């Protein structure tokens, strides 16, 4: 079972909602569309559901043209950012709704609904009215309703974004378990998110979108280890990867007049010239023999400290795995874990990565 999009393009005004989107989705896999707001995630989901037109391109499902299939015949279920439920119905009736529409035997409906209710952890809440539920519970109802439909394609558009931080954390874990159960073997799951951590945790295939265009797709590990260009490195890291313009000359990497170092081993084949060098905030550290920087701002978050630093025109963010207090404009010395240095060419495409490239 395959869903294939071919060259989907939609440009209602001056901006591309979708720009030549060609993808293949297989059953039994979880796909995460990762991108900023307005990057085309929702557009793509809506197009698959049949809720948004396209200018050019086509979609096939199980080998047949999907574009001409009307919305209600597509066998697609969608969960939205807003918790959409029927406010006047009970939890049970909300979940049973799509099955009742299909005129299924009552005993079968009861079975299916109780399985779904168990899956989303709402046992005991069957008779509650929607208004009596918390946001997290309401979103579980919406998810359960999409599960009972047994749709072949399940689309989730940032389903956790309107929930409290803590609820989001818990539900994300549960979603992952629900997805990895029997459901996924006969359906395609597509999940849209702006949050790189969420995409990593879901641990499926990641598709990075920007301005309606696909920048990269691959496993979560692949995309994290080998971002194909600077944009991807920014979108898939929080904080964004530090990217610095510099040069390679006589086996030295020169970032500016004060910062230069020997070319590390994994970059030994690199030629002299101008590049962009990328280093994650977590791959930098305090080092008394390191380079001078000034602290713009130090932010403490739990067990970590984010240091926003500058040296002349160069701005960087360093992530310390400890809690430490700094004053603004403190002078500190830092260094880079050079084994983790990325090299992008002048156009911004990845040239060398610290990880094996597939």
């Amino acid at each position, binding site marked *: 079972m395959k869903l294939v999009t071919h060259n989907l393009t939609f440009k209602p005004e001056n901006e591309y909602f979708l720009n030549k989107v060609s993808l293949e989705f297989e059953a039994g896999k979880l796909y995460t569309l990762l991108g*900023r*707001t307005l990057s085309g995630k929702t557009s793509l989901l809506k197009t698959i559901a049949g809720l948004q037109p396209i200018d050019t391109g086509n979609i096939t499902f199980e080998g047949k043209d999907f574009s001409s299939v009307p919305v209600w015949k597509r066998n697609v279920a969608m969960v939205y950012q807003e918790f959409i439920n029927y406010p006047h119905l009970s939890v049970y009736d909300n979940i049973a709704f799509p099955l009742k529409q299909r005129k299924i035997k009552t005993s079968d409906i009861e079975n299916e609904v109780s399985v779904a209710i168990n899956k989303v952890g709402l046992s005991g809440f069957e008779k509650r009215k929607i208004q009596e539920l918390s946001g997290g519970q309401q979103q579980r109802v919406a998810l359960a309703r999409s599960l009972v439909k047994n749709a072949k394609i399940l689309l989730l558009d940032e389903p956790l974004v309107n929930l409290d931080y803590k609820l989001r*954390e818990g539900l994300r874990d549960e979603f992952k378990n629900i997805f990895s159960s029997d459901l996924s073997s006969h359906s395609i799951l597509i999940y849209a998110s*702006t949050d790189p951590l969420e995409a990593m945790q879901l641990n499926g295939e990641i598709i990075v979108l920007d301005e309606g265009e696909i920048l990269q797709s691959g496993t979560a590990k692949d995309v994290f280890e080998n971002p194909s260009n600077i944009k991807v490195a920014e979108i898939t890291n929080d904080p964004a990867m530090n990217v610095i313009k510099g040069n390679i000359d006589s086996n030295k990497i020169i970032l500016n007049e004060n910062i230069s170092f020997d070319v590390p081993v994994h970059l030994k084949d690199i030629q002299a010239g101008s590049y962009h060098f990328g280093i994650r905030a977590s791959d930098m550290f305090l080092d008394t023999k390191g380079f001078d920087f000034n602290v713009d701002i130090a932010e403490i978050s739990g067990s970590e400290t984010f240091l926003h630093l500058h040296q002349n025109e160069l701005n960087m*963010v360093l992530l310390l795995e400890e809690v430490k207090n700094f004053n603004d404009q403190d002078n500190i010395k830092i260094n880079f874990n050079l084994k983790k240095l990325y090299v992008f060419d002048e156009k911004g495409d990845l040239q060398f990565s610290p990880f094996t490239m597939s």
Partner: protein
Amino acid sequence: MAKIEFKNVGHSYDQNAKIPAYALKPFSLSWEDGGRYALLGPSGCGKTTMLNIMSGLITPSEGTVFFNDKNITSVKTEQRNIAQVFQFPVIYNTMSVFDNLAFPLKCRKFSNSQIRTKVNEVADILNLSSVLNLGAKGLTADQKQLISLGRGLVREDVAAVLMDEPLTVIDPDLKFKLRRKLKEINSKYNTTLIYVTHDQNEAMTFAEKIIVMDSGQIVQRGSSKELFESPSTTFVAYFIGSPAMNIFNCSIENNELVLGRFKLKIDTNLDQIKSNELKVGIRSEFIDLSDKPTENSILAKIKSNEDFGNYILLTCEFDNLEIKVKIKREQVITSETTYLILSKNRLCLYEKEKLIN
């Protein structure tokens, strides 16, 4: 700029009820002039009610509110000189960025030259100078939110800037920039900033002092470090930190902690314990792995590991209890079991859900 003080302030939405159901239970607290505060808690904890009492949108059913020692409990919002920033940017789409920023000054009949000077100054700080003459409609979400903020800042007399989830609609990498701006403003103008959020990361990275709330009351007040290392209740231990602190039921025997079949040493003075309702907690960040037993180690089975990019989260099991451990991505795991070191100075002991110091 002002110091804000609540004296025995409480609020119940149904004031005719015999026993008041408090959305905010009576409390006293002051916010120092020029401070950077976050009100943090889950939906329905009372944080927005607290903010609305500050801004005057709600008159508290009990208690008195002071701005710089002046009782303003029944003073209307318009007369409090408060700037407010909401979750969604409030801007005038038909106006230019300049006119948006100038609006509060025009309403107060400032001269054109005063307006120009002030708007340019604020635009400079917020990096809006280059878009001043553009229409506000076409801007990005974070620029629009900066305009909302800028409108509050053009008036020098604002007592405080109150923000309710101001970064919700902003993409992760832009949040950084906006937060940085807020701090710059705080240090340049010494503006009292109060920031309401359910997101612990936002609160911790933004504020000097965080006020954690649950069920209409303040449960802890402190810096990020204090909340993380010594959460005062099991609720704070769960709410702060991602993942939540590992917490287990435990008991005491011969001055040692009994956790499942393991005995652990702990730095806490155990003489003060009066009941047997005890729990022990440890952060997943403070647990080390070891391949042989050491002091305060427990043997656990590794059930799963999740790659978060910057770190790996292990889910381990001992005595049918689950424990989460954060490790570096580089750390190699070869066996199915491991010893977990629960250092005695990292354990937090709770009696009746409250931290024992």
